[in-house]
């Protein structure tokens, strides 16, 4: 591991000022915020992350989970994944989020990993983690080893000729289905970013993964209230029944009125370079009676433009079956 200077931030402005010293908040950042460390320390050991300064943000009072006066649920940046999963405000009205969190990693990791860290976790593409392999995300311009290599677990949506890395988060998939908003404080003030607009597609710069700038500190995420009577679920399909990343996953949420779908949300994990949600696919469900045909039609819209690689063509059909199965679960 490369040497670094470790500081514990005592207040947010100090953390933000330290972060603002970096040239980028993306791959290659010289300043990194440390929360649970389950991604950052791992990647620092591999040499993928080589920050000169690490700022411990664990004692900034950012771990709250509470209901806001406007009805939103507030989830602090350093709230641990376990605490979020088991919190009654989450497991009650946001079941898919609770299920997504508990389907990810192991208890030990969930006890350390945080909300913001999970949003910002890095791809598990093996070439990104292997310094001996060309990788445009880790070393821009070096090439993509995955397109002609082992790509079975990689993305079919949002890819480019430069990168096909899958976004690994389960939590972010459920949060996206629930219209989560990411709250950021930066050197020039605060801003709110809908999670739908938080991640950027790789295009020709896969080292840039989100809209964060140097000094930007994610302080919390808010989840707007859900419609009365909504049912939701997270279904994760993987090679192993536990402690494994998704091949395909789906967060679905639906309300029914007189036998017809009144509102629907769904997002896919394991298939995109970011959590994948297409509002037009959701709109197509509204007014329909729940049926396999209706669900398949919606997921077809969601998967439009899918570009399978040599080994992951199965993900197209698997994604369709995953969404259909999850919707059936919540509309029975």
């Amino acid at each position: 591991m490369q040497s670094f200077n470790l500081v514990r931030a005592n207040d947010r402005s100090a953390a933000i000022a330290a972060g603002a010293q970096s040239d980028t908040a993306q791959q290659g950042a010289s300043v990194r915020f440390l929360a649970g460390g389950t991604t950052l320390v791992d990647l620092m050991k591999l040499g993928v992350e080589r920050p000169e300064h690490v700022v411990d943000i664990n004692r900034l009072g950012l771990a709250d989970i509470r209901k806001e006066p406007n009805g939103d649920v507030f989830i602090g940046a350093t709230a641990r994944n376990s605490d979020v999963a088991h919190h009654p405000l989450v497991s009650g009205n946001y079941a898919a989020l609770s299920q997504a969190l508990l389907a990810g990693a192991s208890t030990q990791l969930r006890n350390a990993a945080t909300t913001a860290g999970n949003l910002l976790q890095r791809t598990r593409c093996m070439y990104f983690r292997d310094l001996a392999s060309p990788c445009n995300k880790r070393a821009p311009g070096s090439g993509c080893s995955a397109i002609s290599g082992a790509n079975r677990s990689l993305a079919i949506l949002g890819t480019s000729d430069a990168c096909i890395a899958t976004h690994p988060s389960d939590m972010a998939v459920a949060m996206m289905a629930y219209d989560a908003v990411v709250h950021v404080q930066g050197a020039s003030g605060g801003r709110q970013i809908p999670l739908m607009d938080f991640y950027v597609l790789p295009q020709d710069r896969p080292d840039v993964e989100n809209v964060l700038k140097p000094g930007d500190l994610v302080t919390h995420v808010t989840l707007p209230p859900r419609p009365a009577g909504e049912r939701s679920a997270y279904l994760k399909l993987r090679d192993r029944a536990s402690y494994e990343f998704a091949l395909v996953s789906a967060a679905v949420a639906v309300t029914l009125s007189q036998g017809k779908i009144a509102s629907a949300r769904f997002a896919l994990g394991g298939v995109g370079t970011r959590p994948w949600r297409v509002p037009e696919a959701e709109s197509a469900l509204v007014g329909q009676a729940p049926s396999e045909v209706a669900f398949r039609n919606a997921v077809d819209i969601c998967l439009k433009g899918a570009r399978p690689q040599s080994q992951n063509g199965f993900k197209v059909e698997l994604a369709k079956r995953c969404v259909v199965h999850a919707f059936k679960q919540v509309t029975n």
Partner: protein
Amino acid sequence: MTSLGTPIAAVGDSYDSRTNITLRVNGREHKLAVDPRTTLLDCLREVLHLTGTKKGCDHGQCGACTIHIGGRRMNSCLALAAAHDGDEIVTIEGLGTPGHLHPMQAAFLENDAYQCGYCTSGQIMSAVALLGEPVGASDDDVREFMSGNICRCGAYLNIVKAIQQVRHGK
């Protein structure tokens, strides 16, 4: 309070700064100056010589390094020691002693819940924590919530038995 003086740098071959911390391990305080790169795992093993906690993968994938931090189980290989200044840490050495085994340690012995033993301290630390977590109590729940502890010998069957024996107080 124990002061071990200048510790050995646990990882890396050069460093230009050290961080002064107090580690509270198994009820004892240790004032240390550590290289910021030092993980809790390396600090426990190489500096405090508490070698019951094992290094398996060193990347948070196998669970051999599981300890309790603030009463919760975590992978000590992914925790920087300096980020846990003052936190209450419990390792396998703090759970029981050869003459006074923790019930989970006794149950692992009784149920033959290990073979080579390398993963065992991590399994036991996870198992003890599991019984205090808000999850289900079935054998399937145990298997699910113990999935962060890998056993290459395949002692899983008896690990589940040992945990359920302690849960039911038999």
